[in-house]
Every structure is written in C-alpha cells, then in structure tokens.
C-alpha cells in the first residue's frame, strides 16, 4: 500500500503540471466545484447516441505535449478540442504497460493480465459485448480500427457469458495494406508494416490475408485497387486508420467506434524526431476525427468523443529507463495520462483534478449509452454524465 500511496502522490505531481499549464494556456476552469451540486441532466438528444473513442496505442509524455516545450506539438488539442471538453488531468493505469493488453484493459474496464504479445482475447467482456448484448445491437454497430496484428482479438472476449458473436468487427489497416501489397516487394515496406514497435528490433511484418481484404473492401465499398491507390496518397498508417474509420462512419454509421492510433509508438526506435512527428500527426488526426463527426449527418449533434492515451512513457529522471523511448519502468509518468470527453451534454472547458483510472472509461460509456458493464472494475466518471 505504501507504494500505491507514493504512486498517487507522484501521479498528482504529473497532473499538477498538466493542469497548471492548461489553466494558463486555455483559461480552463476547475471542475472540483462539480461535486458541490448534482450532475447536470443529460440533454435530450435527437436520435440515438453514438460514441467514438480514440486511444493512443503509444503514450505521449507531458514533456512533449502539455509542458511549455511540448505545446507546439499539440495545437489542435489545445486550441480546438480542450476548450470544448471536460478534461481529466490525472488518469492512472495500474495495469500492464504493453499496448495491446493495456488497450484491452481500457476496452474491458478491468486490468487484463495476459501476455501483451500473445494473440488472445481479453478475459473480461469488452465494451462492445456489453453494448451489443444489453442493447441488442447488430454486429455492424460496433467497430474497432486498430494498428496491428496484436489487436486482432480485441473485439470480443473469451468470457463464456459473452464472447462469440457478440463482439465488435475489428479492422487492422496495416494487415489490409499487407494483403493489398502482397504482389509487390514487401521488403521495401518493412518499416511501414511493422506490427509492433514494442518488438525488440525493427523489422517484423504482418501476415497478409487477401480474403480478409476483399471482405473488408466489400463492407467499406472500396475496391482493393482504390484502397491501394488511397494508401499511396497518405503519409502514415494512422492516416490510413482514420480513412478507414471515415469509411465506416459513412457506410455503416456504427454507434460505437473505437480507433487506436499508433504512429507515435515509433518512439521505441529511439528517434526523438519521429516520435514528435507521431504526436503532431495524432494531434491533427484527432481534430480531423472531430470534424468528421460534426460533418457526418449520422453523427453530428449526437456523438460523444473520448480521447485518451493508453498510458504514458518513462520519465527522463528514471535511471532504469531511457526516457521517452520506452514504458518499462512503471514509474508515475509511464502510468499517468489524461482523458478528454467532448460532445453534446458534456461540460466545456472544464478540468477535473481528482485521480481516476483508465478502467473507468467502460462504466462511463455504459452510463452514456445505457448498458451495464457488470464485470468492469472501474467507476463511472460522474463529471461527464
């Protein structure tokens, strides 16, 4: 318990820096006073509610984002999104700091304990299963767009009361790209198609599956040729993910859409400039996703967007780590991150200081959409609802 107490204290320090910067930069107000009165009732929204969750499957530190030296990297988050959002400055991840297992924990609301590199489903039911089972939603109403093979099983759990047939569709754009490029010289694309930046060396590629590609092309109403052509016009896999998400929104308009951005995890290669490029791209893509939501008739005015990194990265002061490069030490910076929510009924320009956990997302989504995440270990974020 002592170490947990120290963790809280250190996390609070991280959050304090973030909060102080936000307050000075955006004039944001403190949400502590929210506890002095009852939460505002949800607005009467036209039509069914929708949720888009954007996670960063590769943490970004405050030094490169919210601290003075880093603010140049996140102009869209700071100037466009945070003024419209309720922002939680202290979101702690007490689980395993590997991107697949951590993202799965976000999606189940319970700290999963499986091997980060194993192709296994989460043990606990996912948010997609709760959503579909409780609300009797069809398979087309919940989708995940995720970066790599490792995320292939994130759509549905191995839980015997949920699982089979109740999960979300999962699209792995890099895998589609691999299939689309299978006739070419794949060696040229090694870096582009790398499955996991957490791998020890920088050269793993994905297995291709042409059948899967054609199936998804049919769903997205996009020919393989057009998909490949489009990929040739984009500068990164995350841009491809956002394009796929846009196609999903236009073709299927899922009520629950989960997008995991991954480019910034190139930090594992140790090239600081590429890591910063990834942050800047994610910042821009978050803004684009928000604009997509506002411009698509099926989403405008009824969609709540959540943005959160799965966790942080090691601090510079931790001798056992190597700063931004990895997230191996389990120190406060690597465990502490943030969350923002924006959309109809969400209070704007509010910062919430109290510590919350990353597993609190699922119960919050449950309250928002009306399902019961009965096996989640998190707690509903009252400030949002």
């Amino acid at each position, binding site marked *: 318990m*002592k*170490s*947990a107490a120290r*963790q809280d204290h250190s996390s609070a320090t991280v959050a304090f820096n973030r909060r102080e910067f936000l307050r000075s930069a955006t004039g944001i107000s403190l949400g502590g006073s929210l506890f002095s009165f009852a939460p505002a009732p949800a607005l009467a929204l036209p039509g069914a509610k929708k949720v888009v969750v954007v996670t960063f499957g590769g943490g970004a530190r405050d030094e490169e984002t919210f601290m003075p*030296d880093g603010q140049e990297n996140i102009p869209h988050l700071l100037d466009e999104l945070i003024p419209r959002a309720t922002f939680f400055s202290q979101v702690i991840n*007490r*689980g*395993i700091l*590997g991107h697949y297992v951590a993202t799965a924990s976000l999606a189940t609301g319970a*700290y999963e*304990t*499986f*091997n980060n*590199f*194993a192709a296994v489903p989460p043990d606990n039911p996912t948010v997609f299963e709760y959503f579909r089972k409780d609300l009797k939603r069809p398979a087309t109403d919940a989708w995940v767009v995720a970066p790599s093979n490792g995320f292939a099983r994130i759509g549905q759990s191995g839980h015997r009361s949920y699982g089979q047939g109740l999960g979300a569709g999962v699209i792995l754009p890099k895998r589609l790209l691999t299939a689309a*490029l299978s006739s*070419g*010289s794949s060696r*040229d*694309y090694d*870096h*582009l198609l790398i499955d*996991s930046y*957490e*791998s*020890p*060396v*920088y*050269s*793993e590629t994905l297995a291709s599956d042409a059948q899967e590609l054609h199936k998804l092309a049919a769903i997205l109403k996009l020919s393989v040729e057009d998909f*490949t052509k489009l*990929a*040739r*016009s*984009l*500068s*990164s*896999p995350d*841009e*491809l993910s956002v394009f796929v998400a846009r196609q999903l929104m236009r073709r299927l308009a899922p009520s629950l859409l989960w997008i995991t951005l991954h480019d910034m995890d*190139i930090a*594992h*290669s*140790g*090239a*600081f*400039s*590429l890591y*910063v490029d990834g942050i800047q791209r994610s910042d821009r893509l978050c803004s684009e996703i928000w604009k997509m939501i506002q411009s698509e008739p099926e989403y405008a005015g009824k969609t709540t967007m959540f943005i959160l990194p799965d966790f942080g990265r090691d601090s*510079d*002061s931790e*001798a056992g780590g*190597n*700063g*931004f*490069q*990895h997230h191996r*030490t*389990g*120190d406060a910076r690597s465990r502490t991150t943030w969350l923002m929510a924006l959309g109809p009924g969400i209070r704007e320009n509010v910062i919430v200081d109290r510590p919350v956990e990353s597993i609190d997302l699922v119960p919050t989504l449950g309250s928002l959409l009306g399902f019961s995440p009965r096996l989640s270990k998190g707690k509903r974020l009252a400030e949002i609802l």
Partner: protein
Amino acid sequence: MMLPRDLKAEHFAKYPLEARQLATRYLALLQELPLSFLPLLLREVIQYDWKFPSERRDLDRQLSYLAALPEIERRRMLAGFAELKLSASLTQMDWSGSPLRFSEELTAFLWTSHQIDSFRAAAVAYVEKLDAATPKEPLAAARLAIVLIGQGVAENQRPLFRKLRPQGTYFKQVDPQGGLQAILEMVARRAREHPLPFAHWYIDGGAAENLAGADLSRVSYQSLAPARAALLDRVRSIAQAHSMGPEGVVTALAQMQPSQLGLRGDPVLNRFQADLLTQGSGTQVFSTTFVQWAAREALRRAQPLTLLARFAPRQREQPMNELLAGTHPNNGPDPQGALIDADMGAYYTWLNQQRLSEAEKASFLIWFEGHSEALAIGPAMDRGAESDQRLSLAQILNKLV
C-alpha cells in the same frame, strides 16, 4: 523445485571461468538470499568475465558487503524482495543455470501479478542502501563528456540545447575553425594522462576519426555495419520461420555471441558492442539511436572519465506514400531529423553522466558541429548564462576543465 539453500558449486559448472570462481567463493552468501533476488544477482555474476573493471568493482563490493552483513540486517535489507510472491513455474525454473531467462520470466510475472511496483520499490531501496554503505573510490580525474550534434546540417532554425541551457553557459559566437581537432586532442590527451582500461571512450555515429596513439575504447556505427547486417538477417530468418514471438526473439538475440556477428578483437568490448545491437531497440537501424544508447551504456557500465559521442545523420524514415510509390526509394540521410534526435540524445547523455560518482565535479560540452553554437556545463561555468564572446572550442575546453 530447487531453493537457494540447495545451491552447490556444481550448479555453476557452465559459468565462464571467472564467474564460476566468483560464485563459488560466495556460495554461502548466495544460499542465504531470497529466490526473488538471487537469480538477478546471478545474472550479473554469470557475465563477470565480460564486465568492465568498474562493473567488476561494483559487483565485488556488493557481494563482499552482503557477505559481511549480519544475517538480520541482510534480511531486513532484502525484505522487499522476500515478500514478493513467485509462481510455481518460476520456482521450478533452472534459475541458477539460466538467470537471464529467469529474470525475463520474473519481469513478466511481476507485471501480470501487479507486483511490479513493489519490486520497483524494493529495488530502489536496496540500491540506495548499497550506495550509501559502499562509497566509490575517488576518481583519477573529474569526468568530461563531449557531445557533437548536427553533422551535415547546413542551416538550422530550431533552438538548440533547450533542456540543457539552464545547467550551463550557452556560447553563441563560437569560432568553429579547428573545433573537431581541438576536441579530439583533448580526448587523446586525457587518455594519455590517465591510462586506465575502458576509462576513455569515443563513440561515432558514422566512421570514427583517426586518433593515433590514444588508448581509447572506440565504437562506431559504420564499423559495425557487417554486424548490423548479420543481426538483421538473423531477425528476418526468425520472423520468416514464425517460430517465436517478440519475446522469443529477444531471448534468441540476447543469446547471440559476438563471433556470430563477425566481431573480432577485445572480448569485453566485443560483448559490449554485441549487446548494443542485440539489446538496444532501434540501434540497428538509426545511427542517432545507436550513439545515444551506446553513450548511455558506456556511462552506466564502464563509468568512463572521458566520453566523446559524435552524432551523424541517420537514415531517413520514408513516409508511407513514398514507400508505396516505390519507384525511387529515398532512404538517404536525414540530417535535420538527426539533429533533433541528437539534441535530445545529448540531454540524456548529460543526465546519465550526472548519475555517476563525483557528478558535482563533472564537465559537459555540447557543440553544434561546424557551427557557432555550443554549451558548457561544469563547476567552472555559470548556469543559465549566455556568452557573446568569440571563442574557439579549444578556449571553451580550457575554461571548462
């Protein structure tokens, strides 16, 4: 299941010679240590034959200190480790014969069992007590680290040394003429004046400059090109066989011998270089990562008196659309990206130098190679200061050390 008290000298039969002798000498101590700690210590012992002198001294000091401690105090010191709960599969491993593999499994288990924070706290407390109880010997000379960044950059608009400026004096009118030569001469002179093994290092992200007559430990990205190619071939063959996941690849690479990478010469330096490539992430691909990690590991392990780290342009990371176009692949150098990497790498080099003994006496110089910007940190330099004085690198070095 074997417990530490069951440990015998024959369990070290496959250890290299000096490691075996060391383990046998401290057998009685090792039998008393908790299982959650002992294999981590053996992981260091088993590599004794390839350790640098400073690492050997640290390990010797640690073992003799633990052996001399009254049992009750030793138990108290290691209580944080002893309280960790291990799985049955861990206790049944060959932890004495394969301590590295055990430590990998232990790490994974600590994460999944939510004990990693407790382990971390125990490790921090242990190291603090050990450091306090076993002070280091005085250094032969104050440490000096020099980092050169920006090679190949003609013009730069980005402010440099932002993280380091509060620590020292920023020189903005440096005369770059003869700068590299002055730095090389300073490094060579220190090596001659304090001729200690592995005490003076030169790490280069390109091809190393010739420094005849100086007894330096040299590592360069270019000289390791055959080793890097051999390693990447090995990784590709593993990947194509689909025989193991990323963790298996880590283990397989960690077991590669320097000779398998074509490394010949000093066995200690060879092992160090092999470790850089097999255990460092990104060191095989980006020269900037290589230099930063090599400097970090040299400082952490060899604890040198002198370190020169010279960054060079790294290969360009191609955007997706260019890669897919495929007609004219451009993976040439990216000097501007390398400058940003190196600026951060220099900061990390300073941080790592500060973690060593007598940090308060240490000096540090960073120079935007071939240009007029430099920053010097040390007892003789003002902190957070700027200087417009027109000075050569030789003059700044004379002020610094």
